C-alpha cells in the first residue's frame, strides 16, 4: 500500500541541494525498441516473425528458431508475480538514495519472464499485475508493474513518481498566457494538485480575454514574459527559475505565407524568433537551474513540455512557415533533451494537429480543442511519456510516418 504524497515541507534555504543522479543507463541498441515503445506509452516486446513467440531480454536472434526477424510488437499487458524482493543495499549511487526499492520477477502473459519495478500496492507472489513500459530518470525504458485494480493513492507511490512527472505539489510555468492552451492547462494543473502555476504574458498592459478566468484559478500568478526578448526571459528566470519544476512551453506564432510570397522570409524570421529562438532563450535561462534541481526533494524539477505542431514532422504547405519553424523546434527539443538528461528532467513533446482557434480558421475539421491538448499533456506528465500525439490529425500523421514517411510528403497539401 502507498500512503498519500503530502506537500513537502518548505526547504531550508541553507540546506545543500541534493545533486541529481541517474539510474544505470547502459543499454544495448536493440533494447531501445523498448525505449521507443515507452516514449509513447505503448507496451511492446520483440516478437519473432517466423515462429511468433515473444522474447525478452532483447535479442538478435529468436532463441526458439534462431530467426533474426525480431520486431517489436504490441503485447498484452498482463502478468503474474512469481517472486519479489525489497532491495535495501545497492552499490549504485542513484538507487542508494531511493532505498528500499521493490522489484519482482513476473511471468508475462505473452510468455517471457521480466524483472520489474514493483508498485507498493502490488500483492505478493501469485498476484495478477498490469505491466507498462516506463522511461526512468535516465530516459531508459524499464518495466513497471502495478496492481490490476486501482489502490488508494496509487499515483503517489515513490517508485512510480520516479517514472513520471506528476504535477502534484509541483510548481509550473506556462510560457504564454495568451495561448488558447493556457486556460485549460492551468485548470487541469490546478486539479492535478500543482502548488503554483506561473503564467507568462507579453505586454501585460494589453488586456486579453482569458485573464480573469486564469486569475480565478487558485495558485495562478501572472508574470511578465516575452520569449522574443532575452532580457525578459532572463529576468523572469532570475526571479522564479528556482521555483519551476515543470515548464510548459505554449509559445507559438501562426501566420500563413506562401513560399514565393514577397515578405515570406520576414514572416519566417518572425515565426522563428517567436518559436525556435524563443525556445532557445527559455532553455538558456531555465534549463541550467532545472537540471540542477532534478533531485531537489520529492517534488524537484521534473519535466519540460513543448507543444509542437505535428506538421513539424512533415511539412504542410498551407502552413509552410509554421511547419518549418516547428521542425526546427523539434530538433532543438532533442538537443534540450540531451542537455537536461543529466538532471533527470524529462523533455516531453506534445505534437498536435491544427487547433480549433482563429489562426487555423481556414483548416477543415477535425481540429483539436485546446482542452484536449491540455488533457493530453497532463496525461503525458502523469504517465511519464516523452512523445504525445494529440487529436486525430496528429495520430493519423504519426501512424502514416511510421508506415511510409515518403507517402506523407507526397500527399501533403492534397
Amino acid at each position, binding site marked *: 500500500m502507498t500512503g498519500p504524497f503530502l506537500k513537502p515541507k518548505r526547504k531550508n534555504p541553507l540546506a545543500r541541494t541534493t545533486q541529481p543522479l541517474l539510474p544505470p543507463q547502459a543499454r544495448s541498441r536493440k533494447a531501445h525498441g523498448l525505449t521507443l515503445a515507452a516514449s509513447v506509452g505503448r507496451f511492446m516486446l520483440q516478437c519473432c516473425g517466423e515462429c511468433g513467440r515473444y522474447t525478452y531480454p532483447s535479442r538478435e536472434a529468436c532463441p526458439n528458431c534462431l530467426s533474426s526477424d525480431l520486431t517489436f510488437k504490441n503485447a498484452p499487458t498482463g502478468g503474474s508475480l512469481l517472486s519479489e*524482493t525489497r532491495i535495501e543495499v545497492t552499490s*549504485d549511487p542513484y538507487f542508494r538514495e531511493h532505498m528500499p526499492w521493490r522489484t519482482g*520477477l513476473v511471468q508475462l502473459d505473452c510468455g517471457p519472464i521480466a524483472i520489474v519495478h514493483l508498485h507498493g500496492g502490488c500483492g505478493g507472489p501469485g498476484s495478477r499485475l498490469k505491466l507498462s513500459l516506463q522511461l*526512468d530518470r535516465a530516459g531508459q525504458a524499464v518495466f513497471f508493474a502495478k496492481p490490476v485494480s486501482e489502490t488508494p493513492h496509487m499515483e503517489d507511490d515513490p517508485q512510480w513518481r520516479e517514472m513520471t512527472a506528476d504535477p502534484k505539489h509541483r510548481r509550473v510555468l506556462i510560457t504564454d498566457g495568451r495561448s488558447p492552451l493556457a486556460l485549460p492547462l492551468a485548470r487541469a494543473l490546478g486539479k492535478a494538485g500543482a502548488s503554483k502555476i506561473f503564467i507568462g504574458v507579453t505586454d501585460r498592459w494589453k488586456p486579453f480575454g482569458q485573464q480573469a478566468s486564469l486569475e480565478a484559478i487558485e495558485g495562478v500568478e501572472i508574470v511578465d514574459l516575452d520569449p522574443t526578448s532575452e532580457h525578459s526571459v532572463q529576468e523572469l528566470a532570475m526571479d522564479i527559475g528556482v521555483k519551476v519544476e515543470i515548464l510548459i512551453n505554449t509559445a507559438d506564432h501562426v501566420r500563413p505565407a506562401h513560399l514565393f510570397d514577397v515578405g515570406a522570409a520576414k514572416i519566417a524570421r518572425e515565426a522563428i524568433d517567436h518559436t525556435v529562438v524563443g525556445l532557445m532563450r527559455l532553455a538558456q535561462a531555465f534549463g541550467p537551474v532545472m537540471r540542477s534541481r532534478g533531485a531537489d526533494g520529492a517534488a524537484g524539477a521534473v519535466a519540460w513540455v513543448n507543444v509542437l505542431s505535428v506538421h513539424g514532422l512533415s511539412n504542410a504547405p498551407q502552413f509552410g512557415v509554421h511547419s518549418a519553424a516547428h521542425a526546427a523546434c523539434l530538433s532543438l527539443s532533442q538537443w534540450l533533451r540531451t542537455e537536461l538528461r543529466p538532471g533527470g528532467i524529462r523533455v516531453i513533446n506534445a505534437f498536435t494537429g491544427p487547433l480549433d482557434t482563429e489562426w487555423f480558421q481556414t483548416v477543415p475539421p477535425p481540429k483539436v480543442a485546446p482542452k484536449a491538448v491540455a488533457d493530453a499533456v497532463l496525461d503525458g506528465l502523469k504517465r511519464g511519456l516523452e512523445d504525445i500525439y494529440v487529436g486525430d490529425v496528429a495520430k493519423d500523421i504519426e501512424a502514416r510516418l511510421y508506415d511510409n514517411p515518403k507517402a506523407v510528403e507526397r500527399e501533403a497539401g492534397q
Partner: protein
Amino acid sequence: MVVSRARQSYDGVVLAVPVTVPYQRYSIETAHWWMGKALRALAEGAGISHRDFDGFSVASFTMGPDATIALTQHFGLSPRHIDHVPMGGAAGIVSLRRAARAVQAGDADIVACVAADTNQVDTFRKTLANFSRFAQDASYPYGAGGPNASFALIARHYMDRYGATREDFGKLCVAQRDNALKNPDALMKKPLTLEQYMSARPIAEPFHLFDCVMPCAGAEAFLVMREETAVSLGLPFVRLLSAIERHNAFAEDPVQVRGGWVVDRDELYGMAGSKPDDMDFVQTYDDYAVISMMQFEDLGFCAKGEGPDFVRQHTFTIDGSFPHNTSGGQLSVGQAGAAGGHLGLTEAMRQLLGTAEGRQVEDAKLGLVSGFGMINYDRGLASAAAILARA
C-alpha cells in the same frame, strides 16, 4: 538425432599443489599481481620453474583488458595450451575438465589452473554494471542490487514453494562459520550464532547480511597433470574420477529451482563408480545457502524440494554428519571473484591429500565439488561438478 558417445574416463588425470593466496578485503593491486603470487606458489609447490608449465588456464573478472595470451608474456610463460574460462563459480571445474583432456591427449603435460581477482574500492560496482548484456539491459537497472537482488528472487520463490525458512539458510551459514574458524585463511574470524544471523540487517529480502558473501581480492590455483608426471616430480596428488558441466539448463522453468547438475548427475556418479552416500565431504558453490540447498537436491543427496528437510537432519560441520564447505566456503572465507569457483577444489584437494590440518575430515577418501555461476539475467547459467579421490 545425434547419438552421444560414451565419455572416456579421466584415468590417469591427477591434481596437485593446491594454492590459496590469502585473501584481502580490498587490494590496491591488480588481478595480475594475484596471479603472479599464485603462479609462484604453484612453481614452488611443484619444485619446478613456472616456465615448465606448458598449459595455462585462467579465470578472472578483473584481468581486463588482457586476455590469457597477454598474460603469457606478462608472466614469462611459453605454454602450448592456454585457456580463459570466464564462467564465474563454474570456472574451476570447467578449467579442470579442459586441462584434464589436454594432459590426457598429450597436448600439455602440466596445466596451471589459476583464478585470481582483485577487489579495488570500486571494482565490485563496476563488475556488476558491466556484467553481461542481459544484465545491463534487463536486471541491473532494476534497483542495481546485483546478485543479492537476483538471488533474493530465486530464494523467495524457493521458500514459498518448498517451505524453506531463513533458519534453514542460517543453519548452513552458521555451520560454515564454525568451519571457517579452523581455517586461518578465512576472512571471517568471529563466531556466528543463529540469533546474530536472524537479526542481521536486511540486504534484499529474504537475504540479510550473513546470507551474502563478502567480495574480496585473492587467488586460488592448482596443477593438472598425468599421474606419471606427478610421480616423476615426487608430488602428492589426488585423482579426478569424473566431472560434468551444463549450461542454461531448464530454460523453461519460470524461476530457477534447479541447475544443470540434474541432467548429468547419473554420468557423474557412473563415471566415478560411486553414489552420493559414498562422499566423505561435499564442497558446494555457496554464493547463497539456498543454492547449496539446490545442489544437495540436484546432486542426489535428497529429492527436489527436500533440501530444507535435509538441512534440518544434518550438521554441516567438519566433524558432523555431512561435512560441507569445510573451508568455511565463500560465505566465511570471502568471495575473491572467479577464485570463488576454485575454492571448493583446492579445499577438496587438501582434504584428500590429508593436509587440511585443523579442519581435516577424518579418513576422507572421496569428495564432491560443485560449481555454479553466471547470473546472466534471472538465473545462474553454469553448473558443474567433479568427484575427486585420494590417490
